[in-house]
């Protein structure tokens, strides 16, 4: 085992016979170094949750290999489970129990003594700013608080690897920030985190490296900057005032585009190689055609565009 690679997946395949239960994996590969945060980014149905469930031993793969901290997820499930924490897509806490009762229960199930479980619950409630609500039923918690309780429950025994499956889906912006700060704290403490998300912003904010998933396979991998650079071109955005101008504009700038021109309501985005020349030429040709755009801007590509470029999927709002 390489000491560096905490999560390794080689050609993992999983097929759902009916195809209804979730997206399968078609040769999923992943390598994650210790102490880093990897974002698994992809649209709904790309296989993110399937990957997490297989790596956390909840689901059996059809073929392939995967290890967590050197332990085979198929043959050494119990050893794997000793070293992982799982924050699933739903806040998997008991809603009738208080935050403290939840944590004590999960502590006991991690085979802590009653005294240690109570002490650990207290520490975690403090750390995730839940101390004030510790003795209220989890049903009364806000979405963000519940996710933090969920995070706390998966950290009772400091795991080597933490899986966080779409941690902020369905949370309001405040709840999202709360969860992000929780995840950042973990990273500070040296935990390796595999985070799945459909939100590019989230991956950009939290992940050291991003693997983009499409139809059960990783289609791109790298740091957020590398991925942005991979798309190469800068973008020239034209804000038009009249939708009737769009066809004429497209005809005029078509020759300059280094890739596919995109139109989104009144905005025409043109991928360009030579920034200045493109700007001058577009401005000139528009002026000759007597089209006055509201605005012309040049910018670097966003992760959204990388995402779209690589997955061909619509970016979730």
């Amino acid at each position: 085992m390489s000491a560096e690679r905490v999560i390794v997946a080689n050609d993992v395949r999983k097929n759902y016979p009916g195809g209804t239960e979730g997206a399968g994996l078609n040769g999923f590969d992943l390598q994650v170094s210790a102490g880093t945060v990897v974002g698994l980014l992809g649209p709904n149905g790309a296989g993110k949750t399937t990957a997490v469930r297989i790596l956390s031993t909840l689901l059996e793969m059809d073929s392939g290999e995967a290890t967590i901290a050197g332990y085979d997820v198929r043959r050494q499930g119990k050893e794997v489970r000793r070293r992982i924490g799982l924050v699933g897509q739903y806040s998997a806490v008991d809603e009738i129990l208080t935050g403290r009762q939840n944590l004590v229960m999960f502590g006991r199930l991690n085979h802590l003594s009653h005294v240690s479980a109570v002490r650990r619950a207290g520490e975690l409630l403090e750390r995730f700013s839940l101390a004030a609500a510790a003795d209220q039923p989890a049903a009364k918690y806000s979405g963000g608080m519940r996710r933090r309780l969920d995070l706390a429950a998966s950290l009772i025994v400091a795991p080597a690897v933490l899986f966080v499956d779409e941690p902020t889906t369905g949370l309001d912006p405040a709840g999202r920030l709360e969860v992000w700060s929780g995840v950042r704290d973990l990273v500070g403490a040296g935990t390796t985190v595999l985070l799945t998300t459909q939100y590019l912003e989230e991956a950009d904010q939290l992940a050291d490296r991003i693997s983009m998933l499409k139809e059960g396979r990783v289609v791109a991998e790298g740091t957020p900057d590398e991925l942005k650079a991979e798309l190469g071109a800068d973008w020239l955005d034209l804000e038009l005032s009249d939708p009737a101008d769009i066809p004429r504009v497209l005809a005029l700038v078509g020759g300059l585009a280094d890739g596919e021109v995109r139109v989104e309501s009144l905005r025409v985005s043109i991928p360009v190689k030579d920034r200045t020349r493109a700007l001058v030429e577009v401005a000139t040709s528009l002026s000759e055609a007597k089209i006055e755009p509201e605005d012309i801007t040049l910018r670097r590509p966003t992760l959204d565009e990388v995402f779209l470029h690589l997955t061909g999927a619509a970016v979730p709002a």
Partner: protein
Amino acid sequence: MNRLGWALADGWTIARRDLIHWRMQPGNVIFGWFFPVLMLLMFGGLLGGAMERPGGQSYYELLVPGIFALSMLFGLEGTMTAVTTDAAKGVTDRFRSLPMSSTAVVMGRCIADMLDSLVTLIVLAAAGLALGWRWHGTFLEALAAFALLLLLRFALLWVGIFIGLSIKNAQTVATVQVLIWPVGFLSSAFVATSTMPDWLGAIAQWNPISSTATAARSLFDNPDAAAASWIGDHALVAALIWPLLLITVFLPLATTRFRHLSR
């Protein structure tokens, strides 16, 4: 601790979750315990007057053991709901991601539900005694009757876990719950099967609920509601065989289904 020791300890930790539920939301659980009492009052009060019992005997003498058996069947609804809810909310997955034996999760459900049924029987027996029901046999025979009732509950527990793991959402649970009622009513719980049309009576006779009810009545020395038939004459044996048969079929099915959550 060895494997079994840990499985028991973890099972108890999970069962304690339900006990905390009782404390945190006493309304729900108390309603659950008193619902069979409500049935007892409803059927006893509404229909009791119309029931002609030999020698002016109280209808409760016949009804109470029937409701005992019925409440064991209805306990199934709680098991199913709990299992489906935990699976849907990801709680089951969280348990499965912990380094404990998967037996513990099922065992926790089992311990909690058996405790719940025990309280149900105690409450119901107290209500029955207050309404004039008595056992006329020995105390040991009465204990044996309660043991048979709990055996039926234990058997149905596995049916409940199996169904609970097989269905995915709460709406389906509600549908299955409605289907449980005719299963309970088509038995000798309320009336002697001899009063039913022959074919219906025969089906009701062979209902496991009837076997346990008849066996309990005979152990309590309460009036018999079984028509003369092989299964009616061998109610004690049937009250053992039916649950054992259900366990033989559904315990492996339920545990396999639990393991196959990873498929």
